[in-house]
């Protein structure tokens, strides 16, 4: 870890600062297509995180997929305490940004490197949207 950079700068950012544990995969994200939102698990059989809980984790994924429902669903998930802690993506679409804004989920997107390769699964992260950076703490 020490030989590599542990601070990654995003071109797009919103929300408040948080610290938490990363759940990482080089895969997409749609709240409707990929999740069992009641159980708080990835449920799409072909998703690389299928069966894993996203609740309270900092999701580090490649890109937003699918339809417009995520714009409501992050808000609904947050209201039940069943939302991810933050979203850190290589790229996002407007839906994810709209959903994160309504649902108060901090989000970073747009990195020079593939962020899903740069951050190890299970790493402890600090997401700071004001500075537009995500830092690997350990």
């Amino acid at each position: 870890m020490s030989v590599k950079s542990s601070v990654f700068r995003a071109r797009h950012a919103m929300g408040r600062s948080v610290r938490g544990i990363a759940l990482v995969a080089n895969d997409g994200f749609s709240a409707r297509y990929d999740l069992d939102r009641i159980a708080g698990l990835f449920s799409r059989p072909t998703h690389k995180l299928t069966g894993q809980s996203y609740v309270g984790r900092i999701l580090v994924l490649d890109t937003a997929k699918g339809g417009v429902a995520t714009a409501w669903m992050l808000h609904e998930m947050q209201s039940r305490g069943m939302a991810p802690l933050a979203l850190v993506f290589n790229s996002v679409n407007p839906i994810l940004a709209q959903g994160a804004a309504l649902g108060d989920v901090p989000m970073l997107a747009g990195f020079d490197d593939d962020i899903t390769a740069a951050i190890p699964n299970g790493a402890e992260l600090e997401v700071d949207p004001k500075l537009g950076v995500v830092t690997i703490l350990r």
Partner: protein
Amino acid sequence: MRLNDEEQDILAGKLGTVPQQALQHQIAVGDFFGAEDFVPVTQAHIMADTESLGEAGVRWLEGLAATTEGRRRVCIPTITDPRGTDFSKASYLGQAPWMLDLERRAIAAFMKLGVTMTDTCINYQTIQAPTRNEHLAFGDTGVVIYSNSICGARSNFEGGPSAVSAGLTGRTPRYGFHLNGQRRATIHFRTEFTPTSLNEWGALGALIGRIAGNYWAVPVIEGIEGAPRSDQLKHFGAAMASFGSIALFHLVGITPEASRLADVASADLPTHRITRADVGALQQSYRKEGKVDVVVFSAPQLSLYELRALADLCDGRNFAVPLLAITSPQVKPDADRMGFTARIEAAGGTVMSGMCFYQSYAREIAEAKGWKRLVTNSAKLVNILGGYGYQPMLESMEACVDAAVSGSLS
């Protein structure tokens, strides 16, 4: 973002808290994407089924609707995507009373906000087709990709909260597909196969969406022969948007911004070749022979022509398993009047309106009805339902009807 005098007044609360809250939401999204200012929009389209909203989303809407101070009604034509039920068929679908209560509450709130309850995802076929360069705030990815690509209009994917906000403020942040530069092609496809059936058009769109892969990609496609029909392009675009989150494509010589390849693309774009075998392989990847639990035509809602074609296939048949055909509240009365509904239902099918299968508590329907193995001609539906615990299969309309008769795929 740079705000004009009117926007500064809205932000300062001079028009009331509802437009103020809407503009604050829009500024958060606009700032995230680096929008310089707002652009006026002429129509908004809201995706807001209650499975997506949940109790929290319905309360958010009710909060807006309960505001008595200032302006709370939308200021441009603002319409709705399918709802989470067809109230007249809810018991057949095994939907619980709490789902219907949420729907009723959401509808009441929308009405107080001045929203027109069209409940359709084919408004470009039935309500009012967008025109070239018309700036819009449309929800439903299928609506956006059709409006952008086929009509040459300009919209981003506007999720429910943002489309509500656009209806209330009459504008949207100017970023993404409102900008000329974002509408240039980023990836080139040459197809050696021009589909005829709707499922093949969907499969072709799915392949392109999968390869293109993200919202900011704009595929330009060469090789389509003839002039595709609206229903074909509807399935093509809806699948591309579903599989790839794509909001705009160009068909050279067909869509309005791409008379020639050079109109939208530079010479050095990466190129992908698609064959008939590729389209067949995508459909085959979902195929599992054996028992079928239910046949569904939905996503997007069916046009009058699709219902006509389905009615022709249903004559003289007798279904062994349920067959659902889902259309818009605008098309349904015509389908009734023309006798299409009666012919589909005489074979044992059910025609519903104002909902869409995947937006209607599909997981709970699966549990209530014991439906798992589902056959459809919609590539979009196949893509979505995997996450809802279904085993979806993509077949032609003819094969779907055959499966409803025999209760199996062979």
